């Protein structure tokens, strides 16, 4: 089991290294550069000043040497300093992380708390009206872009109830009530696709398990449907659901960029948005590495959960 976990983590780190390298290269392909964006509006900027700033930011060096500095810093846990305000990237990210984590967790919570019962109900009453309605809604939930859903929610709540989400963000410590009200709509918009994917996946995997031989055995021994569905079939059908959930974390992280922007939430998503606008390379890189690390970590945990759920994976992992 430990070996299995170790191997998963090693793969994860390799993927993360690859992601960091790719992003490092790709952001330098975006047209426009940080110095010109910073100085463009200032009157009377001379070429010398531009060159000086470029040298300060280390952007005059060859790309390989820049990459060297980046990797060197990364090895020491240093993500560099922001081009914008010269503060350490790590500090900037850690300031913004809580809001994003909260939003992401709320979205997942929304998706799981509604997706699981919907999926179960759909499977137990398959081909019923309830099932058909849910399958239809699930397709919509998966196809609708989260930002569009967010805009619809804002618009219609305002039109029908005259209600709008708060404009000023409050951290949970300052005002938990206002904070949760603020997070409600973006969490729903973000979690809708997760809910739909979980419901669909759980429906099909539960249906398959409910038709399996061992479920028939358990029924033949007089077990209640509650034991059959929740304990036995439920556990067996969890693996594909966890897979979906792990992948959905990626969608949710990506979704925070635009949704935090729409709802004025000062999280990592808006940080990335601002950083891209200013070509603030260290901040972009730092955020992407952070997002990548969260996504990879979640999926390593999902891999480990497979082994917790299924002894066959557990023992295969131990013997390999």
């Amino acid at each position, binding site marked *: 089991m430990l070996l299995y976990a170790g191997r998963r983590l090693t793969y994860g780190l390799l993927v993360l290294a690859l992601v960091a390298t790719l992003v490092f290269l790709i952001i330098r392909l975006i047209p426009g550069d940080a110095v010109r964006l910073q100085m463009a509006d200032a009157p009377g900027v001379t070429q010398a000043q531009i060159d000086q700033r470029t040298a300060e930011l280390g952007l005059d060096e060859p790309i390989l040497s820049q990459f060297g500095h980046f990797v060197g810093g990364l090895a020491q846990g240093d993500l560099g300093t922001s081009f914008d305000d010269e503060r350490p990237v790590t500090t900037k990210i850690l300031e913004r992380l809580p809001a994003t984590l909260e939003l992401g967790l709320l979205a997942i919570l929304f998706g799981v708390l509604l997706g699981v019962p919907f999926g179960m109900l759909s499977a137990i009453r398959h081909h019923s009206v309830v099932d058909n309605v849910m399958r239809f809604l699930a397709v919509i939930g998966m196809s609708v872009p989260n930002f569009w859903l967010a805009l619809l929610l804002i618009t219609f709540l305002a039109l029908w109830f005259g209600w709008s989400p708060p404009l000023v963000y409050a951290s949970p410590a300052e005002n938990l009530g206002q904070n949760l009200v603020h997070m409600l709509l973006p969490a729903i918009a973000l979690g809708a696709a997760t809910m739909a994917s979980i419901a669909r996946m759980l429906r099909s995997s539960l249906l398959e398990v409910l038709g399996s031989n061992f479920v028939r*055995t358990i029924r033949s021994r007089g077990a209640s449907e509650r034991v059959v569905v929740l304990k036995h079939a439920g556990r*067996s059908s969890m693996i594909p659901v966890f897979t979906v959930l792990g992948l959905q974390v990626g969608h949710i992280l990506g979704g925070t960029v635009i949704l935090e922007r729409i709802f004025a939430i000062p999280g990592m998503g808006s940080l990335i948005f601002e950083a891209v606008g200013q070509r603030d390379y260290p901040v972009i890189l730092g955020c992407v590495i952070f997002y990548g690390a969260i996504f990879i970590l979640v999926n390593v945990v999902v891999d480990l959960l497979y082994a917790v759920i299924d002894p066959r994976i557990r023992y295969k992992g131990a013997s390999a």
Partner: protein
Amino acid sequence: MRAPARSADEPLLRVEDLHVEFRTGGGTVEALNAVDLWIDAGETVAVVGESGSGKSVTALAVLGLLGNGRVSGGRITWDGKDITGASNRDMRTVRGNDISVIFQDPMTSLDPLFTIGHQLVEAYRIHHDVSKREARERAVELLDLVGIPEPAAKFKAYPHQLSGGQRQRVMIAGALACDPRLLIADEPTTALDVTVEAQVLALIRDLQERTGVGLMLITHDMGVVAEMADRVVVFYAGQVVETGTADEILDRPQHPYTRALLEAIPRRDTPRDQEMPAIPGAVPALDEMPTGCRFVTRCTEAAPECESAQTLRDVAGRQVRCWRPDEDHGVLAPMAEVAG
């Protein structure tokens, strides 16, 4: 072991004129058409017939586990009580407690995610309000009973750590956990090696002698029938075509289908260059069943009389669904002895 609390003419299980239909994409199909059978306490009844003849459906109907099928007619009586169409809640007190099943495929019939001990404890506690520790003792006792070596250690094993034969032993242990009065064994050895098959059959017979449990043995292996059965019920295409004692059926089969089944058993003295005897054709699909005798499409003795529907008739002390044999000229050509 329980004392048989019943009158002599009231069997443990009686199935009368049972009809079962399944919903499919293109409407309903009838899987059972007027099935009659009974099982007395402690007796072994072999239910034989080709795949798809309705043997397993009968077992599932008795347990109320038909899934998307339903009993559309007839009656199932358990220990004098009518349990036809009983609610799931009522049937749950019967399943595992009064009537237990061993299914065909031990590789997939245990939950792979729980230890076998957990599954046995669960089986026992469904019908017994006892502590986990007591149930645990019972589970270890059951593992010992079915001949699992080191039962206390194997208690913690997962199904995938056991061989097919051992898994089927665990299935038997689970089926016997609550001392049922009837055990339905649905082709319990089909998925096993021949050597393991003999061991599992010996185990079932041994346990039956020790506990006095009635046995409904579903099989298509006539060798198994000869070895285990007191009585035989022959199924064809959702109907019972012949029923009688094992000796009568094996020695003097009356229905052409039963005879064809017995002739299809390869024997040691069959010359090697001779082709294996087989019944030509296949069981007609459920939606294109002949209106008369259902075996008419494959019967070597088909005659105009076969066009009319056949009923189970008493012939020479047993029941046969064929117009041909009658008591006057007794039995048809006797069969040679069947190799056990």
